[in-house]
């Protein structure tokens, strides 16, 4: 099956695409910026550096257009940055405990870039690579080659990501990857949203609902310890709740992560690609919905954004934005059901995730 045969809502997309030179990277390579525009004036900017989602401009209830993504001004800042803002994460999104796994009776040792663990693909992850990019009808196709031994992973992995934008405000990310040898793979996008469009504020006033009955509790290094029911706890977003109050509910898991940085199990309702998360900002009236065929959504409330330099030299505060990252479970390669995160020759990796931005009805 190729990308064109993938299920709805992977529509062809209707956006017009333009391209510009964005800036130089250390070493002299030039990063480009592609802008997708739909019929209602929505603009999504994507760079070939890290296949990064750089900005998403859309109108609020009063028609004022603003960017709902956190980011930096220049590609050099993205390249040097440590916040992964908007970048595509590979080969492994989130953490692998002790930077180790075993596959087909072979033990592999990976780069350690967060204590003893591997985080977000290691030091030279997909988000810092210059991808090949070409415009297609309604969007953009980006490709990336990861050689055998990249961060310690086996196999040569070739990744294709297609971004498309529709007139209804849906941005679809369709990932496909093949490998010439068995290897774990877990891709995601690290877009960090603040729907108010006000980067100086925080997301405490945002209201979220997440269609999940369980999530993973984590240890002190944020490695999953086990699945827990959301019912009766701060983690229960089956009915929508404002984040400001939930961040202050008593829970040792929230104290441990400095807020939410937990993976929700969303793939169990049998509703592939149905909306699983709804987020809105009461002030602007902007609303984000999200769906995915991945089994997990990592919900991160920007607990470590404090001090990160954003645009125009301004520093973000704690909880300045939030991430909704679709993918496998953190450290799943070392947990039950590790088999389902292994890509083998002839068995490609596929993920479809969509985000739709609109206004509250």
């Amino acid at each position, binding site marked *: 099956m190729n990308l064109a045969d993938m299920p709805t809502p992977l529509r062809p997309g209707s956006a017009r695409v333009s391209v510009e030179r964005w800036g130089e990277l250390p070493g002299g390579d030039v990063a480009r910026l592609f802008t997708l525009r739909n019929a209602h004036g929505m603009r999504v900017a994507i760079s070939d550096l890290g296949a990064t989602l750089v900005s998403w401009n859309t109108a609020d209830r009063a028609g004022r257009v603003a960017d709902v993504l956190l980011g930096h001004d220049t590609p050099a800042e993205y390249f040097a940055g440590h916040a992964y803002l908007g970048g595509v994460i590979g080969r492994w999104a989130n953490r692998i405990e002790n930077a180790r796994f075993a596959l087909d009776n072979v033990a592999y040792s990976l780069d350690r870039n967060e204590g003893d663990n591997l985080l977000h693909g290691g030091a030279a992850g997909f988000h810092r690579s210059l991808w090949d990019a070409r415009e297609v009808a309604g969007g953009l196709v980006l490709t990336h080659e990861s050689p055998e031994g990249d961060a310690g992973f086996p196999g040569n992995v070739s990744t294709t990501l297609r971004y498309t934008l529709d007139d209804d405000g849906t941005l679809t990310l369709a990932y496909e990857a093949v490998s010439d040898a068995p290897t774990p793979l877990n891709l995601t996008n690290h877009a960090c949203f603040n729907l108010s469009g006000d980067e100086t504020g925080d997301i405490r006033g945002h209201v979220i609902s997440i269609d999940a009955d369980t999530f993973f509790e984590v240890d002190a290094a944020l490695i999953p310890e086990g699945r827990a029911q959301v019912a009766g706890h701060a983690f229960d977003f089956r009915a929508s709740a404002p984040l*400001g109050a939930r961040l202050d509910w008593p829970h040792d898991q929230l104290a441990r992560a400095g807020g939410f940085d937990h993976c929700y199990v969303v793939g169990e309702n049998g509703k592939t690609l149905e909306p699983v998360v*709804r987020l809105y900002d009461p002030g602007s009236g902007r609303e984000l919905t999200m769906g995915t065929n991945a089994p997990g959504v990592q919900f991160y409330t920007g607990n470590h954004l404090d001090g990160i330099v954003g645009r125009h030299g301004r520093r973000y505060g704690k909880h300045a934005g939030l991430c909704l990252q679709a993918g496998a479970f953190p450290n799943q390669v070392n947990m039950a059901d590790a088999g389902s995160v292994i890509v083998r020759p002839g068995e490609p990796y596929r993920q479809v995730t969509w985000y739709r931005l609109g206004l509250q009805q």
Partner: protein
Amino acid sequence: MTRPQTAQASHRIALLFNANKVYDRGVITGIGNYLLSTRVAWDLFLEEDFRCRLNGIERFEGDGIIADFDDPGVAEALGDSQLPVVAVGSSYSDPACYPARLPYIATDNAKLISLAYTHLIGAGLQRFALYSLPESAENRWAQERELAFKALLAADGLQADIHRGLPTSAPVWSQASAQLTSWLESLPKPVGVIAVTDARARHLLQACLISGIPVPEQVAIIGIDNDPLTRSLTRIPLSSVIQGTEEMGRTAAHLLHQMLGGARFHGRRILVPPVGINVLESTRHQPVSSPYVMRARHYIRQYGCQGIKTEQVADYVGVSRSSLEDHFRRELGCTVHQEILNHKLEVAKQLLARHDLSSAEVAIRCGFTSLQYMYAVFRRELDCTPREYQERLPVAPCAQPG
């Protein structure tokens, strides 16, 4: 930290609220939702008429209390309670105003006012005023909203015009209305007015209608509470900030649940932000320069669903039909008839979104002469049938717990 997961012997819990108000009902609904989402079984004590009575509360043989601390009597009666108590009420800018040792769940007054204020700015307003309440021990939250309003306007270098008015009671009603009208008339316009409650917002709206001030062109109005009762009493639908009352209830229930398991939250405060704005006609401010168009739209907003024609609008405005049509074409690029039709269509869309009326009923309420005509208008303007429109409306993706 204790985290009870299994069903336990039921605890007796008293809820001390005056649940005749939409705010308190929201809090109690949130408590109920929390209980339904868990396996917690509480034996809840509430007065039969949902009014809070304090006599005998010290003899309540229960395990815990969640109470409305906006009522000074409640705060006093529970000051020395030996039972676990979770307090619910107004936020305060002065920390000394909170009860010292109790966990306290507050509605965030500063965020409520800031949401209303930024909404009015978004609607294009540049002058702002607040309609508050006379100072009393029962509504300290109104004073907190005044403080929040003053602080916001001071930060933007603007003058805060605040009218407290009189307490609402039958004997002084006409005096209160007269005072309110003269205050409204004295304000430079256009102006956006925040009312500290929907009940106060209704007074404002009524005063504007009686003295012929176009809403929202001259005075845009937003209340707080999103009270459906108030909405049903006003001819121009009222915009309102929605407090996070259900989350307040869920948070209070969660803390008490933990306290019954041995946790202690001495003096912990959780501020709950508002969860939305119901944006309706009273703040759909579109600056227009022609006073004729302004008056005409004011009339259409009130009577557009009652079968009015262009002649009646022109009569109300006091100009000839052709002159009014000229003004409409220049300002809005449409005819008076089209504006009336747009109004009907907007109301029909709102009614369809409620999902509790038949299409035929919607057609009648919006003043369409027949169901077929409403279908034709939907087909022409929206390229769908009313039913298809209804089906296209987004539905909340997440199931309710329980």
